[in-house]
Structures are given as C-alpha cells and as structure tokens.
C-alpha cells in the first residue's frame, strides 16, 4: 500500500476517532439522537478538519513554534465560523438541530490534535489525506451510533429530516425512549466502545496467529 493511501485509510480503523482515540466525545454524545444529526455533524467536522489540516501544513514553516497553538486555534475557529454560516444559509434544519455544537467543533480535540500531531509536521497532500480519512471515520462512527440510538429510541431512521425518514419498527413499536435521552447516549457509546475494543482484540489475535 502506498503511504498516501495508508494515511487515508488509518482513519477508518487504526485511529478511528471516537473509539480508538477516545477524543471529541461531546458531539458524539450530543447529536446522535438521530442518524441525520450524526452524519451532519460528522461532515461539518470533516470539512473543518480537512481545511485546517491543509492550511496548518502549508503554514507550518511560517508559524513560530511558541505561538503555534494560538495560530492553530485561529485557523480552526475561522473554518468553524464559515461552516456555521454556510449551514445556517443552506441547510437551516441541520443548523437548528446541531445548535451550539457547530460552534463547539472549535474545541473538538480531534482537530487540534491532528494539527499538532500530524499537519504541523507533514506536507499538505499527506495532511489532506489524513484529515479526510479521520473525518470520514468520525462521520461513519457518528452515523452508526445515531442509527442505533434512533431506531431503538424512536423506531424511525431519519436520513434527512423532513425528506427521508423510514419507520423501521412499525407503528406498534413502543419506543425505548431511554436511548434517545441523555443517559442512553452514554450507555450506547460505552457499549459500542466495548464492542469495538472486542473486535480489535480479536483482530490482533488473528494477526499474531498468522505470523
């Protein structure tokens, strides 16, 4: 595998953000009451992550080491503001649903973490691949968690609010409301984290046996 493809694909398993790196949990918990909120938040975060990664990487020789964190924060906050205004203008339903969590992307540790650990040291192309891979991994995680929580908690599966919502469980289903409420978010994420860890352990064992 070429190194660029490796930078891209590592986001889907090796450093899958909310599970393998346990970072950026606030949005994961807060917006995953529906599948729509999950992928919407994921893509907004991906956009900010890719843009900030590329810009940080381009400016890595210009920014003095001592003020690099402040500079990264300014860059990230700028892209967050742009996403915030764009969503408000073109996808108002999503903007309303995510609320202050769009602005809170700025303190998502994943983005600052990638700027510090990767983009500040590597070239723009590699940083782009890294940001895109991790962003999409984050999006998929949020979408899966949102899907599970919504189907159990409301009986529906909202892919796009008002346009595409499937009544998965049928009208007779008594929703397990716990799952869409706050406590269900914690428990749902905890159980999913345990499952991912279990799969990780199994895969490692298989790999070792193969060697």
């Amino acid at each position, binding site marked *: 595998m070429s190194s660029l493809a490796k930078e891209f694909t590592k986001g889907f398993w090796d450093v899958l953000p909310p599970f393998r790196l346990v970072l950026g949990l*606030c949005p994961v918990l807060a917006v995953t009451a529906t599948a729509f909120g999950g992928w919407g938040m994921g893509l907004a975060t991906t956009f900010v992550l890719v843009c900030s990664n590329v810009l940080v990487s381009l400016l890595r020789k210009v920014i003095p080491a001592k003020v690099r964190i402040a500079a990264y924060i300014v860059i990230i906050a700028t892209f967050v*503001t742009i996403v915030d205004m764009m969503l408000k203008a073109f996808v108002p339903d999503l903007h309303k649903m995510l609320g202050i969590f769009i602005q809170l992307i*700025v*303190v998502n540790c994943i983005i600052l973490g990638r700027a510090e650990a990767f983009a500040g040291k590597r070239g723009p192309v590699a940083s782009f691949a890294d940001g895109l891979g991790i962003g999409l991994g984050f999006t998929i995680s949020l979408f899966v968690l949102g899907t599970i929580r919504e189907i159990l908690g409301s009986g529906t599966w909202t892919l796009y609010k008002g346009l595409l919502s499937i009544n998965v469980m049928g009208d007779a289903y008594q929703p397990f409301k716990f799952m869409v409420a706050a406590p269900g*978010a914690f428990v749902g994420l*905890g159980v999913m*984290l345990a499952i991912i860890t279990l799969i990780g352990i199994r895969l490692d064992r298989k790999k070792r046996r193969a060697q």
Partner: protein
Amino acid sequence: MGGPESFGAYLLFIVGAVLVNNILLAQFLGNCPFLGVSRRMDTATGMAMAVIFVITMAGMITYVVQYYLLVPLNLEYLQTIAFILVIAALVQLVEIVMQKSLPALYRALGIFLPLITTNCAVLGVALINIKKDLYFFDALVFSFASAAGYGLALVLFAGIRERFALARMPKVFEGTAIGLVTAGFLALAFRGFAGLAG
C-alpha cells in the same frame, strides 16, 4: 428574554443549571476531561475547582466582549473566533498569575489549566449565556451554577470510579467503556431532579 423575575423563579433557575440541565450529564459538555481525570478523587476535585473558576471568569469576560465589543461594532459573526481566543488567553493569564502569586494553589491546579482551553464546557457556557439573552448578573450566576454542577458531577463520578477500580469486570469494558456506562446511570439519576424544576 432575560432572566427569571421572582425569588422563587431565581432559585429554580439555579437548581435547573446545577442539577436538571447539568452541563455534563444532560448537555454533554466537557466529556473528555470528565473521563480523563476522574480515575482518582484528588485529581477530580482539583479539576472541578479549576473548571468552576475558569468557567465563571470566562462567562463574565465573553459576556462583556459580546455586548460591549461585537454587538456595537456589528461583528457578531466573529463570535466563535473572539470567544475561543479570549478563553485561551484567559487560561494562560490565570496560569501565569497563579504561578507567581499563589504557588500553593498552582501546585494543586496548575496541571489542569492547559487542559481547560479545549474543555467545551467553558465555550459552551459562554455561548449559552448569549443564546439565553441573559442580563449580566444572571449570566454570572448561571455560569457559576453550571460550573458547580459540572464539579459536582465530576466529584461524584470519581467517587464511583474509585470503587469499581477494585471490581472485576470483562476486559473489553475496562477503562473508558465502563466509565461511559457508569456516567449513563449517573445521568439517569440526575434526570430524577427534573421534577424539581420542569
């Protein structure tokens, strides 16, 4: 618009911010440090104190920035950038001042301060203050009450976590996974307070 009017309503406003709408357990703000520092009681109390201090300060300063700088200049769209810079600068400043003049406190809280800039509870409370369109004093009380709720949840959680560090559990749940499930049940307990202030 604005804050509550009567004394009774004010009490409910505070109870609501501390317990019912707990920023950590009901609004999910500030979860990374919550899971990170809650393994031991003493670090949890240190973090709780530092968070209460910074959230209250940041709530006041961002309020002033919003209504005496951004609104009059018609620059409300710079809110995110301005707030996060103010918070980052504030945390640095607190760190320097504390190191110079309160070395004992700095030794206790110092290591938590850099973590607070990226604690979304700080920016979150600042933004909620503006969103609720509170008056200055109400915003101050709300910031402090929310932060106290955060501290309370953090300390309670650390107490529980210290106990189950000794318990045997499936290997895959060790660490963060069981932490999240426990936080879920703590959140369930906090939901019981909803009857206090609708």
